[in-house]
């Protein structure tokens, strides 16, 4: 049974939270809906109807919103002066244990899905978090805790409480948390004289950008949910309205003013969780060799992930958006990365790598793909072949990039292989000479060389005209000394 199928079977039901029992959420969703001050009609019916318009084979996990937590800001318990919280638990199917996206040694119990609602839209010392959401996977369910700041003077208590709920060993999953959520909390802690670094983070905005940048109309979480995950939120408030609602709540003191804000926030965390599930599955199935076009999820919503980006992701141990410690180091993953207590199920480094290689190789030779992407793919591959001493594979890739795509970096790499591995100094020099001629004639025609360090990869270094001249001069010296 694939994850898709299993997810489809689920009807997420809210359960009373452990920390804050919620009498309302135990009743039927329909009655819970009556508590909502703002709920629209379409949100109160079961979700099956909404599924009609969308791809029918897509899971219905997104229909979690039909619950009490979204119906109103109910079930909050006072924790401290000006600080309240509630916990809402969503039952999940047994999630398949893919281990291709998050590094294998990160235990699922260490994941914390974090999202904030704040008083401001930008950064700065005057922007505070008034609603903090923490989601954790606890034995086949997702427990989301919402901590609400009822007024400014409660911030020290809010921070003190968060301190008890977040261990430095937790892995904080977020969407733009590196630059926003975690950064903001870190600043708030700093202003209160505490050091809280958030060293372990996985910001899913980064992988989404690299995999889907060219496929989504933008990379906001709501776009990702709508276009990539096929989720339609039953009730939602534009996130930018949240500060105004909060200020209104502060003035009037009626918690129902925050109903939509709390619902929006709850769905943000849930959406974040769904996105992670999607990324795990995408990587997992790709690593097992499934065809890319079958991985578009939900089918028909959006084009499949960028094969080059997916290839690079599988192929390398680096994960864009992952911050913190040893997991980024190749040797850690290479030796199994096993996490005590939890069996590593779908984890096979070699198969991920070989599938990544397949994707990259395909990309390099596919004329339908942007040449910039093909170059990146080829350089990634070639560099890998170089690093493991597969000179002839490296030679083939660089040769192709150089000849077909006139890639200068590939030309330089090619000349290096010719010089150092194959001892063909004359050929190496000829390639450098040809590149110099080309850049010269380009300039004479009034064009500028566009070989700037656009990819940011270190392999581009050494492609400036000056560097090429140096290389040529050195090669020529070597040739005259008769070293060949």
């Amino acid at each position, binding site marked *: 049974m694939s994850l898709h199928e299993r997810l489809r079977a689920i009807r997420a039901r809210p359960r009373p939270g452990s920390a804050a029992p919620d009498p309302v959420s135990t009743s039927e969703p329909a009655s819970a809906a009556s508590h909502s001050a703002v709920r629209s009609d379409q949100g109160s019916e079961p979700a099956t109807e909404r599924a009609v318009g969308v791809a029918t084979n897509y899971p219905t996990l997104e229909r979690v919103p039909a619950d009490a937590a979204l119906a109103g800001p109910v079930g909050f318990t006072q924790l401290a002066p000006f600080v309240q919280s509630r916990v809402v638990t969503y039952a999940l199917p047994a999630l398949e244990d893919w281990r291709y996206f998050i590094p294998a040694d990160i235990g699922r119990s260490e994941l914390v899905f974090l999202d904030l609602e704040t008083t*401001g839209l*930008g950064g*700065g*010392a*005057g922007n505070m978090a008034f609603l903090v959401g923490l989601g954790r996977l606890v034995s086949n369910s997702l427990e989301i805790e919402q901590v609400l700041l009822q007024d*400014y003077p409660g911030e020290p208590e809010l921070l003190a409480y968060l301190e008890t709920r977040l261990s430095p060993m937790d892995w904080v999953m977020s969407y733009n948390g590196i630059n926003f959520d975690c950064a903001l909390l*870190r600043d*708030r802690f*700093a202003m209160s004289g505490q050091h809280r670094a958030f060293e372990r983070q996985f910001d899913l905005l980064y992988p989404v950008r690299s995999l889907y940048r060219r496929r989504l109309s933008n990379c906001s979480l709501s776009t990702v949910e709508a276009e990539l995950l096929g989720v339609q939120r039953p009730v939602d408030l534009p996130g930018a309205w949240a500060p105004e609602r909060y200020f209104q709540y502060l003035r009037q003191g009626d918690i129902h003013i925050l109903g939509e804000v709390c619902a929006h926030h709850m769905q943000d965390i849930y959406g974040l969780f769904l996105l992670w599930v999607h990324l795990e599955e995408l990587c997992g199935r790709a690593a097992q060799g499934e065809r890319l076009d079958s991985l578009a999820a939900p089918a028909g919503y959006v084009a499949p992930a960028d094969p080059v980006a997916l290839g690079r992701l599988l192929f390398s141990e680096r994960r864009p958006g992952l911050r913190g410690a040893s997991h980024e180091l190749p040797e850690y993953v290479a030796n199994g990365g096993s996490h005590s207590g939890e069996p590593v199920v779908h984890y096979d480094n070699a198969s991920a790598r070989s599938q990544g290689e397949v994707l990259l190789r395909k990309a390099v030779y596919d004329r339908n793909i942007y040449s910039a992407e093909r170059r990146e793919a080829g350089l990634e591959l070639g560099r890998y072949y170089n690093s493991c001493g597969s000179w002839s594979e490296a030679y083939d890739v660089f040769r192709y990039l150089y000849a077909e795509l006139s890639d200068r970096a590939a030309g330089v790499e090619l000349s290096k292989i010719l010089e150092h591995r194959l001892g063909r100094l004359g050929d190496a020099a000829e390639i450098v000479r040809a590149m110099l001629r080309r850049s010269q004639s380009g300039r004479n025609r*009034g064009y500028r060389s566009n070989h700037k360090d656009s990819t940011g990869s270190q392999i581009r270094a050494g492609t400036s005209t000056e560097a090429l001249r140096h290389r040529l001069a050195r090669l020529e010296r070597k040739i005259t000394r008769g070293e060949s």
Partner: protein
Amino acid sequence: MGEAEFADGVAPVAPTRRHFYFRSSAVHGTIFPDMKTRDGLQAVLTQLEQDKDFAAAVTRWEHIPAREGSYADIPVEMHSALRESLSTRGIDRLYTHQRQAYDAVRAGHNVVVVTPTASGKTLCYNLPVLQRILEEPDARALYLFPTKALSQDQQAELNTVVDGGRRVPIKIATYDGDTPQSLRASARDTGQIIISNPDMLHSGILPNHPRWIKFLGALRYVVIDEIHTYRGVFGSHMTNVIRRLRRIAQFYGADPVFICCSATIANPGKLAESILERPVELIDNNGAPAGEKHLILYNPPFVDRVQGIRRGAVHESRRLALRFLKGGIKTIVFARSRVRTELIASYINKSLANVYNENQRIRVESYRGGYLPTERRAIERGLRDGSIQGVVSTNALELGIDIGGLDAAILAGFPGSIASSLQQAGRAGRSQSVSVAVLIASAAPLDQYMVGNPEYFLGRTPEAAYIDPDNPYILTDHLKCAVFELPLRAGEDYAGAGRAEGTDAALTYLEEEGVLRFTGGAYYWADRSYPAEQISLRSATADNVVIVDTTGGRHEVIGETDRPSAKELLFDNAIYLHRGTQYVVKQLDLANRRCYVEESDAGYYTDAVVKRDLKVLHVDERRALCGVETSLGDVLVRMQVAKFKKIRFQTHENVGYGEISLPEEEMHTRAATLLFDPTTVGGAALAALPPEFRMPAVARIGGLIKNVAPVFLLCDHQDIGVAERLRDPHFELPCLYLYDNYPGGIGLAEAFLERMPEILAAASSLVHGCSCAEGCPSCVGPRNPEEEIDASPKAAVLSLLDAWLA
């Protein structure tokens, strides 16, 4: 020397191409060793004295004798690395003012150092700061400069002192709008000295102070260079930024000492104390030696004595600069506009042009804002190392950018203030050798007055600077920022010197507006915006237009300019001059802040005709005051460039016009208007004047008020705009507008009406008490031959004032 030697038209190559004169990097200062320079300048001065034509045009030749330096020892505790660094630069003792500054700062006193250009001002702050950081590596210092160019200059200067950290292990970082995102974190975390500007402190650093805890918590020194630039509204903002800085620093446990430097103004000590709101020790006993100096006021000879037309300042400056340059004298020419800067530089280079002797081995560059930073750095370096012998500049080089010693300064026109004149003249002058500064008057009445009345020019103290940090508009803006940065406890002292007046009123207002929330005994920020973003410390917009050269398929950025100037300089078909190259503007794309130009070889340059216009939007109140009707309300000040003149190079003849179609530059602000209704005393007094005197008389009273009001309104004269109408289309009366030269207004118009009786009385007594005969720049302004007013404008204005205020 006859004029023939300087004849134009000897250029062997096309004069408008970029390389029409030779630029040699091989020519170094060694060709002009100091000995030669000294003899050379003395020789040229002797020649000038003997030149009858020249001498006839000189209205004053002032000799300022050489002055011995006075010295003090380098403090014994000085770190050896610092001592070595000084000795490699040939410094084995300090000037007394440097030592005094060092001792005062070490004793924990705030200081302001006021000494002339090239008196070793930077060591006054660098020594105590570097010494402290060497003793205590965790200590931090913040340097604030009013412009990015000065910041970059200081970064370069400091880098030579610490030798990139090798000699003196101190990390220096620049943090301003140009600092790439990728370098910002490391600048914050590791920079022991951060170089920045007030705008960045206001909108970048303070609102994000949690990222700066390490820096702000260890902040020991704040250096404010060129503190005299923080005058008027800009200075009032600056004071509030310093209040906020001190507040945040205190929050993290730091109480920095301030080290300020100022150019010569009338009240540097008082200005520094107003900005810092702390006692400040004034250090103005310049211990630097000075060579003999000549100051020459020069009025160009008549071309047409009957019509009173004199030779132009542009060509006279060129002639004189050539004389100096050919004598081997390093020369700077200050021009009053960007176009004039380019013109004078290119005329000089054209006169020098010779392919056989590499332009006589003299390299002259132009310098102004709008060049690429790398270009500017290269010119500054060339001036320092001697590979450039001459430079023509706008006032961009007036401030303390290090360009080494120069021997001659030529002011092509009076720069507008005595303080600026002193700064510019001070650019020439070395410690050992003789130097000269020449003011060449233009035809403008102010210039003519200065050269016609040398006693006035030489005897006048430079202008004073005033600020009003508790201006309710400015205070309210900064209270928003302050609360955003940290909740403000009820009763907390926001200002440095006790609670600022009006704080409570401002807080109550902000709370009513819903921007602040008062709860638990403190004010909290309760708005989703980022307040510093909406508050600009300066009236000028920060927007700039990038100039792109598209000649022959190129696409290369060659310079930039601010947006309002772009409309005046870069309209379609304008000729844009850039370091000796001529371009024609193909398209000004204001929306995308770009201007596309191509090289051109037109024989003319262009000058926009700027129309200024004022429109009344709304009248809030009208009342009778001081014998006239007054009105207070909103106005729109508009500036439009609708036409341009084509002016031939060299002869400066007008050879045609062109149309410009660009949107107006608009400023919505507040104005106080004096309406001279004939039924009022003032109106009747005006009506009693002959009709042709009325307009100039009102204009001169406007100028007079602009001079007097800053003392009462605690602003700068540039913060007040003046416009006069003989018959105003809105009020249908003769009137005088006094508007707040700040978008939105900061209350100057209201304050003017409140203080109007005092201001008018002071204006009247100033004119009565002025010793001049017929009007001077201090009172009603000098005579202007183009005006149809009596032989004495003073008499006309006095008769109006006396009848009005009787």
